């Protein structure tokens, strides 16, 4: 079972929900796919060890062979290679690693090198939650390759794999949602929360992933999010109130299920509801 925690708007509580759900269920794999700002381990405090490097291929031009024909630069869709009178210049951060330039070069002057854009880390030692995280190097623009590589480590051995997604609706979100069985959309009952929830609903509907909504800080705003969910027939999985105690625990990096009684069961119960929703769906 693979569950992603996502939201259009940032700061709605994805990481909080992902971590607390993983702890409540146990024997869980948790993958932090918010590789631009991975935060799950601030709450788990595992010793992490580097598992592997994430690399992308980049062109390497042999100046001896290159006759400056410019075919590579004409072919490149990303403006990552430029042919100048003085030589060919490569702009690695713009390169997607498609291999096109090497393919089109009539002189076979282009080979490929690799460069690191991020790393994958894993809990060195775990008993309850097996944490994996991706980390995009500072200054690197492309998060999706790191997310794709992290996704390859989803294991079927645990109860559940929980994916903490990045915010938004762009390509890194799609990368983190690929192959998911279910998606929990976390929102808050404000105009921004509702607007961005609708965008996120568009995403999961287009991808055909079954989903439900979790309303965080459920008492800060108005009822429009709930009314929207009812009118769209979207299950509301849980409401977490705007409790200063929860906010303070969060600020200290303490998962609230470990301090506030009753919440552990509520997460277990939510998971059971999700499983039921999925089996009803399968039966239909």
């Amino acid at each position, binding site marked *: 079972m693979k569950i992603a925690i996502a939201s259009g708007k940032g700061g709605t509580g994805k990481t909080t929900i992902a971590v607390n759900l993983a702890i409540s269920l146990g024997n869980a794999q948790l993958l932090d796919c918010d590789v631009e700002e991975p*935060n799950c381990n601030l709450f788990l405090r595992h010793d992490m060890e580097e598992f592997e490097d994430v690399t992308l291929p980049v062109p390497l031009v042999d100046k001896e062979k290159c006759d400056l024909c410019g075919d590579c630069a004409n072919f490149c869709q990303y403006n990552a290679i430029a042919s100048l009178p003085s030589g060919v210049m490569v702009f690695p951060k713009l390169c997607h690693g498609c291999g*096109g330039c090497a393919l089109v070069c009539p002189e076979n002057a282009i080979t490929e090198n690799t460069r690191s854009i991020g790393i994958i880390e894993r809990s060195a030692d775990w008993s309850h939650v097996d944490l994996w995280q991706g980390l995009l190097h500072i200054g690197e623009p492309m998060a999706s390759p790191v997310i794709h590589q992290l996704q390859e480590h989803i294991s079927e051995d645990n109860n559940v794999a929980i994916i903490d997604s990045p915010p938004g609706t762009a390509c890194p979100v799609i990368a983190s949602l690929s192959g998911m069985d279910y998606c929990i959309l976390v929102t808050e009952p404000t105009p921004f929360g509702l607007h961005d929830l609708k965008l996120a609903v568009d995403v999961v509907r287009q991808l055909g992933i079954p989903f439900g909504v979790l309303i965080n800080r459920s008492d800060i705003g108005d009822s429009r999010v709930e009314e929207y969910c009812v009118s769209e027939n979207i299950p509301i999985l849980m409401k977490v109130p705007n409790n200063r105690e929860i906010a303070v625990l969060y600020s200290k990096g303490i998962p609230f299920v470990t301090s506030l009684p009753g919440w552990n069961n509520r997460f277990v119960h939510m998971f059971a509801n999700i499983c039921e929703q999925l089996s009803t769906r399968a039966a239909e």
Partner: protein
Amino acid sequence: MVKQITIVSGKGGTGKTTISSAFVSLANDLVIADCDVDAADMHLLLDPTLLKTDDFYGLKVANINTELCTACGDCLDACRFNAIDGSFDVDIFSCEGCSVCEYVCQQNAISMIEKKAGESFSSMTRFGPMAHAKLGIGEEASGKLVSTVRNNARDLAAEFNKDLIIIDGPPGTGCSVIAAITGVDMLLVITEPTASGIHDLERVLELSSHFRIPAAVCINKYDLNESNTLSIRELCTEMGVDVIGLLPYSRTPVDAMLNEKTVLEFTDDDFTSVVRSIWDNLHDRLVSSAETVDITLKSSLM
């Protein structure tokens, strides 16, 4: 010379849009650019009237003509993005538009087609001109759309004779953030005194020093955890960045949002008076950075 300032945070939901929209209602001569193109919210507060809408084309996508395709599999082998499946369907979410498949196809069965990836808008609000956009679902080119919004904002600044652009940035550190901060005069980083807020602040400050853009920091909800607030101040001192505002934990942002107003239109309280002082501070910094440039220019001319 038009000045540009980008509001960023690393972590989402720290108050970027609340604060940048408040600045807009304080300053007179500015253009606003909402560069959080995949979850743009500023328009909910500013209720813009559209002046101009342009279609945005991102990367092209491969299209396979099944009449011509002989299922040889060359494209499948050549595609590095696993965007073509065994039945020769193109997954438009995975395709990055590189056109390698088009090149290798011996039957000329593949063409690269333009795909509308969103829209960009130039608008007018009650506080002045605004550039914004809407990215299509799952689109690749969010950085490119951010650049489009910034170009539109510069055009609006020229047209309406404004000398400042305030850019509401996206969360994270990746392509859309890089596009939103490249070449600006200054960053205002909004953080909060939480474990995540601090971690993400550190990464954004690394990004600002990587691109050599001066930054200042504002701590929202500073009283949620005062010992973390102290740690942030220490971190900022270490990194040579000024903390220019401490905003209290307050209901004002949500209440203002529910009324579709900026915080300054909505009320006058502890929260909004700090917002005003942050703006004054920022404004002084932008003016003084302009003077520094003038002096350097003059001295280089002498």
